[in-house]
């Protein structure tokens, strides 16, 4: 039991946090801009490299430098929206989807050019795990990631339900034409969507980079699971996406636990397939997700 919690449950919740923060952005972009943003994982990568670079100059704890990574990811997101996505807004959204595949490659190749394709570490050395009640051993990063994600979830919920900008975002997600009739500035809402989605992606990227290493495929490799989480939570339902992220993270990690007998339920090398399979199954049987999101 203790072993299960230490080696499976806590890492699963950490992975879930990463997915959750990525999926929120995907879900919001899907809801407001109405397209599947296939460069979202690479936005995480950009954020992680931002923090990596900042750590070289200011050797403090990487989490303290998240604002640098977030700023870089936000700038990147606003730039690609302005130059690549906005010119396609009047067309069928599939063209923007295709464009986002290209943007993913642009981000990735820039990362490879500027930072090389090596694996690079964000934190050198080993931090001893936190020991709770003498038995639960939690890596500091895991505790930080899970706690920060929960705080962000609450803050995001308050923002979306209480603030004028947050409500405008939900309105545009709900009925874009009516939002325009009500005089809401859709382009401003879109800019805010990118700001929030990119900032959260950067945080997710930093968690992922600290959990393993920073490399150009960091975000792309996590992306399909984040799509699964966004769909599971219901498109356009940010809180659903957070729940979805945790569910997918748990499903992937716990599928390798030795539930029956001594062997893992499924081989760890197929772990990532679990997320994809859930996504495909959802698309077939319940595309509106668990929490009745919208359908395009």
């Amino acid at each position, binding site marked *: 039991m203790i072993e299960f919690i230490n080696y499976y449950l806590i890492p699963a919740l950490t992975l879930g946090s990463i997915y959750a923060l990525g999926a929120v952005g995907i879900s919001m972009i899907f809801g407001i801009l109405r*397209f599947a943003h296939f460069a979202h994982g690479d936005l995480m990568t950009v954020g992680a490299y931002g923090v990596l670079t900042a750590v070289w100059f200011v050797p403090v704890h990487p989490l303290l430098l998240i604002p640098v990574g977030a700023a870089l990811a936000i700038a990147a997101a606003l730039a690609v929206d302005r130059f*690549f996505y906005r010119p396609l807004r009047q*067309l069928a959204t*599939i063209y923007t989807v295709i464009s986002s595949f*290209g943007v993913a490659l642009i981000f990735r190749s820039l990362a490879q050019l500027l930072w*090389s*394709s090596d694996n690079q570490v964000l934190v050198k050395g080993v931090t001893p795990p936190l020991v709770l009640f003498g038995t639960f051993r939690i890596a500091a990063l895991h505790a930080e990631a899970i706690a920060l994600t929960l705080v962000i979830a609450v803050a995001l919920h308050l923002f979306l339900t209480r603030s004028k900008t947050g409500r405008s975002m939900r309105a545009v997600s709900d009925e874009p034409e009516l939002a325009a009739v009500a005089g809401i500035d859709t382009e401003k809402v879109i800019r805010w969507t990118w700001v929030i989605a990119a900032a959260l992606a950067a945080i997710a990227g930093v968690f992922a980079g600290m959990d393993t290493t920073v490399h150009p495929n960091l975000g792309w490799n996590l992306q*399909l699971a984040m*799509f699964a989480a966004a769909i599971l939570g219901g498109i356009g339902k940010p809180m659903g996406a957070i729940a979805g992220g945790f569910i997918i993270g748990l499903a992937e990690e716990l599928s390798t636990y030795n539930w029956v007998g001594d062997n893992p339920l499924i081989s760890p090398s197929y772990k990532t397939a679990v997320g994809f399979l859930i996504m495909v199954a959802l698309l*077939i049987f319940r595309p509106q997700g668990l929490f009745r999101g919208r359908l395009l």
Partner: protein
Amino acid sequence: MEWTGLFFYLVSFLIASGIYAILCLALNIQWGMGGLFNAGIAGFFAVGAYASAIMTTAPSDKHLGGFGMPVPVGLVAAAVLAGLAGWAVAKICVRLKSDYLAMASIGIAEILRLVIVNAERVTNGSLGIAGIPRPFDGWVQGRAADLLFLGFVWVIVAAAYVVSQRLHDSPWGRTLRAIRDNEAAARAAGKDVERFRLQTFVIGCAIMGVAGGLTAHEFKFLSPAATEPLMVTFLVWVMLMAGGSGNNKGAIAGGLGIWAIWSMTEILTNQLLPPEWITRSSYIRILLIGLLLQFVLQKFRSGLIPEASPPIRFKGD
């Protein structure tokens, strides 16, 4: 560069671009005519590549088979298996809207690739399959064999073109385009939209499988690295968009043109860049292709050879 060197560079260029032309024709059936967004080309390509490799190699204890069959049998197996995989995907996914179809197809393609890497007893995992024959292997040796293979590839390009063109001009193709441009109207006219889409997807995937098989025979060696989505899925999309989706000639032109740009920039970057940058030159080329796609999407949407009556798809259609 000496002339023979240049000549055989051209031969290998034409082999590779011929295979890309086949992939573009296949994607053109799915996307250009059917409006189906397949983002998992690499998966069907990989199924075809492994099918043909396993069918045609000599028996080996490293992987399933091989069965020592002639290359054409291998390619038929590639088409059938990739078509079957396409059928399974289409069966569950064609009714999804394009964004979801993109996610589903990419997800399934990644699962297929994951299986290929991990099913070592079937595929020899990341070590790959060696000793894959080419057609007419016993007849000629050395570089003449490259020429023969080039002819073989382009015969298949021609066949794929004829098939695509026939499909395009047939009543079936017209119905397909009607569905693409106005699904509701086609449905109202009593067309079985799902069936048409399923057929489209399967035909396209089968042809993608053949392209995968040809790649295996081209290199005589096959490992999971040859099925990278970047070089297979993404590049093919750029080729079709630039060549002119909806037009079979455009598909071939896109395959040739983009592959020419890709190869030429390789030569250029290798000559111009300082040595320490050579390893990074492929990233520069990927960056350029990514930017080229943006240019095509914004300013050049109908491509080099546009569709005869191009669709204009605006919001809400």
